[in-house]
């Protein structure tokens, strides 16, 4: 099965923001995907790995949203997995008619606060860029 075609401006925009995340200390990989798990842009992972990882990110995001809703906690902003050997941060990117999932993986030496600040900031800037693209091209 082939993944749906991703527009080049969308991929270029996402890659630009991922390059910002790449500057975070102890960066391992980052990816942007659709909310149903298709990779749009990836840094630090081969295509096969990124397809698996983005599918998992979408599932994590979907489950996190359901938990947030179940517990009446408003809108999901993001999910963090604290692992023995690193951090996984997942963040929602909202535009008016298009939502994306942003994922960043850092190794164990990473600073939690710095990582959280970086992904929040990037998600906010990416949302603004996404909104601009949506307004320019409704079929994005």
């Amino acid at each position, binding site marked *: *099965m*082939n*993944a*749906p075609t991703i527009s080049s401006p969308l991929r270029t925009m996402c890659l630009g923001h991922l390059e910002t995340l790449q500057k975070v200390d102890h960066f391992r990989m980052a990816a942007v995907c*659709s*909310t*149903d*798990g*298709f990779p749009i842009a990836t840094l630090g992972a081969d295509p096969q790995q990124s*397809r*698996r990882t983005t*599918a*998992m990110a*979408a*599932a*994590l*995001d*979907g*489950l996190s*949203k*359901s938990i947030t809703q*179940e517990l009446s906690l408003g809108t999901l902003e993001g999910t963090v997995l604290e692992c023995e050997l690193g951090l996984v941060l997942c963040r929602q990117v909202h535009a008016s008619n298009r*939502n994306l999932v942003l994922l960043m993986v850092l190794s164990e030496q990473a600073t939690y606060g710095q990582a959280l600040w970086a992904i929040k900031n990037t998600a906010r800037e990416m949302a603004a860029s996404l909104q601009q693209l949506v307004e320019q091209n409704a079929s994005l």
Partner: protein
Amino acid sequence: MKILFIGPMGAGKTTAIHSVSDIPPVNTEAENTDAAQHSKATTTVAMDYGEIHLDEGDTVALYGIPGQNRFAFMWPILGEGAMGAVLLLDHSRADSLETLTTYLDAFPALVERGALVIAVGHTQQKQSEVLPAYRDILAGRSLALPLFVTDVREKRNVLLLIETLIANAEVNQLQDAL
């Protein structure tokens, strides 16, 4: 008791759980960006969850898997501890017979235990026209699993599938005990 609803995207897993659940079901729906695979607006990305409350105070937990192959990593996670599964197939799809084979291969433990009921939907045709091709595939593997044509929008149809699965499990347990 835990029952899985398995099958490809758009086969009706979320609908089936909605049809019978005694609680508001838990969904993990996301926008479907893969129109080539299926035209529906949203798709399950992690799981569906519902419950049936039995008179004796027992609860049947219903778990729906995300159907796309890219979410196959969720299948064993959700399948852990399941007593059986209802496999829903979409007869309107050209690859529905291949899909049966795919799911028989993907859930070997359930197949081996005979803990599977197969329900073919999305068709107006009679059972006698629809089922032989599916039955041939099962016979080719020496399997005699319950096979139905159904519409999972109807609660009674989904209950029939679940009752069949439970009855089959009880018979298998009795046979194992002998």
